[in-house]
């Protein structure tokens, strides 16, 4: 009854259209767009970044959003224009400007019941207008059972944390060994999810980390190569996790063993 995603029942539970259990072979730009209605707080909107490229989409948690659902208090309701009602929504985490086009009597009736100080559930499109984030609202409903307020914030937390988990798995490379290592890496080295997700590419998989380490001039200068123990120590990864990845890197011709089977150097092209 309170679910904001009643028209799209999958989106609230599957993290906006994609599930972490699905195999990933599509490009990251298409898999990170959601078409569902996402519950967010105003703070999340204000902190979101623009996605680069052709669309003026807004990115929250690494997902490009257009439709969002919010719950909050209406303030500064302005009905000076006939076809448009403007107001601000304050949900305790910030304020956002909202606009509602009133073209039919249904819309007008809906907006009449909404006054300053009313708690409402809003569904709308997120847009950026002259540098400010704005909500083009297509649905406003006053809240009658206030458990919906608690529910909305919990849903925001749920969506966010569900999304953070799927973000971890999204950056998996093709090598299955590095798949399991990757999630380990994400938890041991990158405990804070939000900044990772907003960068979009902040997390490297283990292959890249080893290669980056071996590519450093200090390492390439060493004739006998770098011992496996040293790599483990520098990257703070247990040796057993490294062994499989090292083997595959060797098989791919990206690194080679030098004086013995435990010393490696990066193949310089």
């Amino acid at each position, binding site marked *: 009854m309170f679910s904001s995603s009643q028209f799209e029942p999958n989106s609230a539970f599957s993290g906006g259209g994609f599930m972490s259990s699905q195999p990933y072979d599509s490009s990251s730009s298409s898999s990170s767009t959601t078409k569902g209605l996402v519950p967010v*707080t105003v*703070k*999340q909107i204000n902190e979101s970044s623009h996605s680069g490229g052709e669309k003026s989409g807004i990115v929250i948690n690494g997902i490009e959003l257009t439709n969002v659902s919010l719950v909050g*208090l209406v*303030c500064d309701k302005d009905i000076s224009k006939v076809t448009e009602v403007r107001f601000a929504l*304050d949900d*305790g*985490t*910030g*304020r956002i400007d909202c606009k509602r086009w009133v073209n039919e009597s249904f819309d007008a009736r809906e907006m009449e019941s909404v006054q*300053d*100080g009313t*708690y409402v559930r809003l569904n709308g499109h997120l847009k950026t207008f002259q540098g400010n984030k704005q909500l083009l609202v297509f649905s406003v409903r006053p809240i009658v*059972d*206030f*458990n919906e*307020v*608690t*529910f909305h*914030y*919990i849903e*925001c*937390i749920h969506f*966010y*944390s569900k999304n953070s988990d799927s973000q971890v798995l999204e950056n998996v490379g093709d090598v299955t060994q590095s798949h399991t290592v990757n999630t380990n890496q994400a938890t041991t080295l990158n405990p804070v999810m*939000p900044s990772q997700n907003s960068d979009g590419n902040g997390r490297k998989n283990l292959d890249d980390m080893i290669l980056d380490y071996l590519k450093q001039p200090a390492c390439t200068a060493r004739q006998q190569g770098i011992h496996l123990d040293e790599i483990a120590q520098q990257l703070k990864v247990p040796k057993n996790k490294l062994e499989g990845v090292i083997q595959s890197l060797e098989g791919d011709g990206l690194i080679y063993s030098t004086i013995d089977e435990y010393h490696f150097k990066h193949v310089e092209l």
Partner: protein
Amino acid sequence: MDTSSPSAFVNGSLMRRYIGQKVRTVIQVVGSDVGSVVGKSTDDLQIIVKGSPPTTTTPSTYLEVIGIAENENSIRAEVWTNFGNSFDPVNYNELCKLANGEFKHLFI
């Protein structure tokens, strides 16, 4: 109504972290006086809210109060919302803990 600055979700025990700052909480009305309302927070601590409540504050009604925390058990209210009688304080209490803990960055 000036709620332009963000308000932290608090229960009785979390209020001490935000003394002097804007907070929001839900209390169950226990009694009212001239100029103040005595209520029970969602974690069963007594909270005193100063200000003039909306007219229907019968005991056992839930009221959401947004205002400045004056000390660890009193708020100077700016906005009151009647949350009715069928509000679930346990859920709200858990939300307060989450909003001040692991997911604080989504709120404040």
